[in-house]
């Protein structure tokens, strides 16, 4: 059971990473081209998000009606529905960081094997930021 969840996670991570590379989302210049509406705007990212939601939507809407997932005893899904200051402040800080470098968490990790120096500088800083949260507001 546990071995299956680990293999499934590896496969999901691998497919996710390939999707990031093929779509262009692992390329910060392309992400910034999407975020730069006032410049030479590149709408590709809307197609990436659209394609991802097109496939994920039926799974989340109808797949979760099953009693339980295939390799786990229960669904482990978020149950919060409130919109609080932490959510919005965190999203705002994330958006600023995303706009500065063009990297969000997935693409930064996917880029480690392609541009190791820059991706590792970003990823190490991202981990430091996550740990900083954990030992301050996240205690």
């Amino acid at each position, binding site marked *: 059971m546990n071995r299956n969840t680990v*293999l*499934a*996670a590896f496969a*999901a*991570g691998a*497919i*996710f990473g*390939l999707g990031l*590379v*093929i*779509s*262009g989302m*692992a390329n*910060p*210049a*392309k992400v*910034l081209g999407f*975020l730069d509406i006032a410049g030479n705007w*590149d*709408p*590709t990212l809307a*197609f*990436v*998000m659209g*394609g991802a*939601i*097109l*496939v994920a*939507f039926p*799974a*989340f*809407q109808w*797949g979760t009606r099953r009693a339980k*997932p295939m390799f*786990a005893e*229960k669904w482990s899904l*978020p149950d919060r*529905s409130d919109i609080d200051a932490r*959510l*919005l402040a*965190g999203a*705002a800080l*994330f*958006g*600023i*960081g995303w*706009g*500065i*470098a063009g*990297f969000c*968490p997935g693409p930064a990790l996917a880029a480690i*094997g392609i541009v190791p120096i*820059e991706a590792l500088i970003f990823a190490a*800083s991202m981990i*430091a*930021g*996550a*740990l900083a*949260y*954990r030992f301050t507001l996240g205690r």
Partner: protein
Amino acid sequence: MENFTPVSGLIGGMLIGASAALFLMLNGRIAGISGILGGALEQGSADGAWRYAFLAGLVAAPAAWAAFIPVTVEIEASAPLLIAAGLLVGFGTRLGSGCTSGHGVCGISRLSFRSIAATATFMAFGFLTVFVMRHVIGG
């Protein structure tokens, strides 16, 4: 719009969606990168193995792909900006409980208002940050 690549964007996006759908149906979990990474960083996490497996797939598959097929990854940000952006992304995604994958792809597919609010917020701040950096400071 000469950089616009809707077909590869859509195909890559659908792979990202397929990964999220697969991970949901097999393991019953959200394919949210900041959450998976954040959980892996927390000590004493009993169910940590699947987290490391997902992250290993996310790093290894793009590296293997790039060994055979040329992948463009252009980074404009300097090292100090990469560090600042990484810290903001790491802290912000933990404070806000998610990033482009967890809130964006999975949250929108779940029709979670919390995730839709977070996605609207980080997108807005991403657009704003690029506008300021490219057209106010850089202009």
